[in-house]
């Protein structure tokens, strides 16, 4: 082995030793420049090769290139190693406490009365009904007179009204919509009319001076009480489940004849009797009946040619039943703790 070869050998082992002892990418870059740079050790050696005897050049050149490749390989593998280590270190620094709470982005929630009416609307739309609306400020005529409730009618006692003037009042029921629809629409039609109503009642857990009703009405040439039953049965089963039983009994409303009251078997005790159903096993849902011939006439519809049914139910009450809420005042109070549950 020539002295050159010996030198090269030393160079090689020194370079490899140096590389293996390096701990940072910066230092590695320095080493890289030192050995492999344009003016690096190995390039320098290659230049110096011209001073070597001609016959030794190829061999020496081969050795130098071999060392160069070896150093490149070592540096690259060292770089990978260091990069991995650095990445690992960075990731380690970025470690978070995954048990910390997440960001509070609250969803916009709908009010329970809205949630209920959307279900009711969907059910009745499926049964061919459309949604219409009326006015909250009504005349005595639409709220009472046209609905066969003259001023002296005892039924007015249960609907003590808020008056705005002698003639205008806050509607006590959604039924005025029946008249307004008939005045504008030629039968056949099927409508529901949800809306706000007002009664001069002291607020209690069961009564609020401001509450909501859903009116329904269907008029066609062949509508029978059996259709009223079919519609309401379908509605009750869709809303409360197919396992509830339904019941119709006679009742009185000035604007329907015959009239009825519709009840479902108590959804809380399954009809066995509990506080919600006053131990009767039944929960009254709504009042209904065949549209009174006088009301049809007032609406410009001939009761000999057409017939219809109508019903009206407490919207708040439906929500109370569905969510098992026992105070009607919660709805308009809007306590955050109440609303956040829906």
């Amino acid at each position, binding site marked *: 082995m020539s002295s050159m070869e010996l030198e090269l050998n030393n160079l090689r082992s020194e370079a490899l030793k140096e590389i293996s002892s390096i701990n940072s990418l910066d230092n590695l870059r320095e080493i890289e420049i030192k050995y492999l740079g344009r003016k690096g050790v190995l390039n320098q050696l290659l230049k110096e090769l011209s001073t070597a005897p001609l016959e030794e050049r190829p061999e020496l050149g081969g050795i130098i290139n071999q060392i160069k490749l070896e150093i490149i390989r070592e540096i690259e593998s060292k770089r990978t190693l260091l990069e991995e280590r650095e990445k690992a270190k960075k990731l380690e620094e970025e470690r978070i406490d995954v048990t*910390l709470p997440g960001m509070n982005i609250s969803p*916009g929630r*709908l009010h329970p*009365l809205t949630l209920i009416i959307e279900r009711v609307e969907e059910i009745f739309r499926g049964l061919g009904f459309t949604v*219409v*609306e009326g006015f909250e400020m009504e005349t005595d005529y639409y709220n009472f007179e046209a609905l066969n409730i003259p001023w002296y009618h005892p039924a007015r006692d249960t609907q003590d009204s808020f008056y705005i*003037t002698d003639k205008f009042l806050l509607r006590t029921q959604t039924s005025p919509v029946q008249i307004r629809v008939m005045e504008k629409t030629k039968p056949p039609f099927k409508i529901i009319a949800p809306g706000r109503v007002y009664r001069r009642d002291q607020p209690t857990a069961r009564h609020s001076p401001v509450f909501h009703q859903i009116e329904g009405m269907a008029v066609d040439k062949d509508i029978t009480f059996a259709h009223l039953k079919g519609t309401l049965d379908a509605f009750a089963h869709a809303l409360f489940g197919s396992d509830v039983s339904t019941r*119709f009994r006679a009742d009185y409303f000035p604007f329907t004849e*015959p*009239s009825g009251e519709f009840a479902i078997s108590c959804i809380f005790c399954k009809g066995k009797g509990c506080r919600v159903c006053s131990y009767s096993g039944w929960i009254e849902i709504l009042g209904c009946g065949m549209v009174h011939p006088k009301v049809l006439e007032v609406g410009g519809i001939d009761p000999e040619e057409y017939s219809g049914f109508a019903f009206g139910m407490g919207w708040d009450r439906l929500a109370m039943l569905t969510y098992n809420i026992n105070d009607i005042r919660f709805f308009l109070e809007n306590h955050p703790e109440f609303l956040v549950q829906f």
Partner: protein
Amino acid sequence: MKILYSWLKDFVDIDVPPEEVAYKLTMAGLEIEEIEEIEDDYILDVSIPANRGDCQSILGVAREISALFNAPLKLPDEPRLKEVEEGIDIEVVSPELCPRYTLRFIKGVKVGPSPDWLKKRIESVGIRSINNVVDITNYVMWMLGQPLHAFDADKISEKVIVRRAYPGEKITTLDGESRNLTEEILVIADKRHPIGIAGVMGGEDSEVSLFTKNVALESACFDHISTRGTSKVLELRTEASVRFEKGIDINMTKLASDIATEMIVKLCGGEVGKISEFYPVEYKPCSIRFRPERFSKRIGINPSYSEMRDVFFRLGFKVEEHINEWRVTPISARRDISLEEDLYEEVVRIIGYDKIPSILHERITGVVSTSPAWEKRKILRRKITSLGCSEVITSSFVPVQFDKYFREFYADDIGSISVINPLREEESVLRWLLSQSLLSLAINNVRWGYNDFNLFEIGKIFFKDGESFMEKEHLGIVQSGRIIYSWDKEVNASFFSTKGLLEKLFKHELTFVPAYYSVLHPGRTANILYRGKVTGFIGELHPDVARILKLPRIYIAEMDVDEFPLEFFSVGQVKEPSRLPKLKRDIAIVVPETLPSVEVTSILEEVFKDTLEDYELFDLYKGPNIPEGTVNLAFSLNLRAKDRTLTQEEVEEKIELLKNKLADIGGRLREW
């Protein structure tokens, strides 16, 4: 009305447990609210519908039971009274309010306590025992539904006159109250003054007392409308007035008097005097047409003729059958039955509603279009909740203190609406803006300890425009505190968080113009214009108002939704997405800080025209790097031409143009 079960059985022969009776009555329309068991007997609490005046008696309920159970009804016998030749003359001056009047003279009674059996019966149904004569009148009223009144005959001067009260007349009624009478009120009077308010309550002067020797027993039929009016005006409801209001059986008037008279002489002694009677036109129920086929068409069942005939017989109605058309005559007690449909109800009531099948009406009748306001509300609700805002539904009444809040939104001649007969102050003023309700709710929220909220309401507001009462649909928003937050970051409610919601909901088609509202922050309030018209407002609550109401910073916005047609919210003409490259350009513009930013953005829109797809203000800077009194607005522009790839040169040309335009408003482009 309370019904003693054993008393009921005096009139109808049934042998079933009271629960069964209660069930059938309930199903047929007379709801039994409670069955109370008392020693060897039961009390049924019956709720009587407004149209069933005939059921306001033991006899009336017995008649229902008789029909429902097909059990014979035992009508009371007509007493045979031996009369002496003495009586009191009557004169009915207002027959329109008193179709029948009778007055029986009873001589030489001994007023005292009632026998135990009588006391027990009336007390069991909730009537206070007073003395034998009065108790008998109450007993017979409860039993037959005919209100009776006993006067002390010696207190009656000359004769009894049924007339309207004279203006200014007064009477002290049995309850000791002095009452002012008007011409609308029918009174029973003697030659001197009123001795009773017809159908409502007797007078104190002529009351039957322990010293009464001679009795004048009144049994009459007073007009239901008049009695109701009197009762309302005087705010005096009695067992008698309730019965007259719902209507009594005019053909029971004399029989009830005779039965009471017989009881009085039996239990209190005395002799039966003459009865004076006024009954010029005897009431005979009219026959009503009943078409069995139409019945089936309306109800959806086909009972046999004999079943239907049987129902009417059980109710005591008369039936004349002709081909396809019957004539049915109800009994005189059933004044509620006047139309063919009323007869339908009788048939289904007795046959049972459960016999009617349940059928869906399948014909499509969807010719009524759904309310656009309803659809609009649904779209808005869905959009705004997706933006994190939660729905509330508040009362239409607002606290009186907020009555004139946000006045500046309306023209001077617009007023708020109040009800004229509120029950409480809280239910007197109707909101004319949702902001009033939301402010009230904000106060509650803060009081409950919730300072972070982001709420909306869509609801009706009310106002008076001259003589018209207006009702419109509004959207209201209230925000306060933190909207998005965690332990390391938070976004707080601000004017711009509220404004951002409106921009998203109304598609950036709104213009915001500084405005003045006395309850809002003078520097942080704007009217909102849509197509040049004020349709809403937005602002921070005035710090002074907030302090008084104990509120933190509150941001409120309100929009008149009725000003936007449904189409505004629906999907418009769909554009084809462009495949051409988008050019992003960030620019910084320095303008005087007093210049509204809209001046700058309108220049941007004008200069770049339709090549400006959208832009965003991503930074606003005031500080040492720019001259004092100026502000740096940094915009990020997305540029793209519809038909070609936009070149850098084209953009540079526009930038040059922009520079000129900015100079006109005292601004300049800032080089990076």
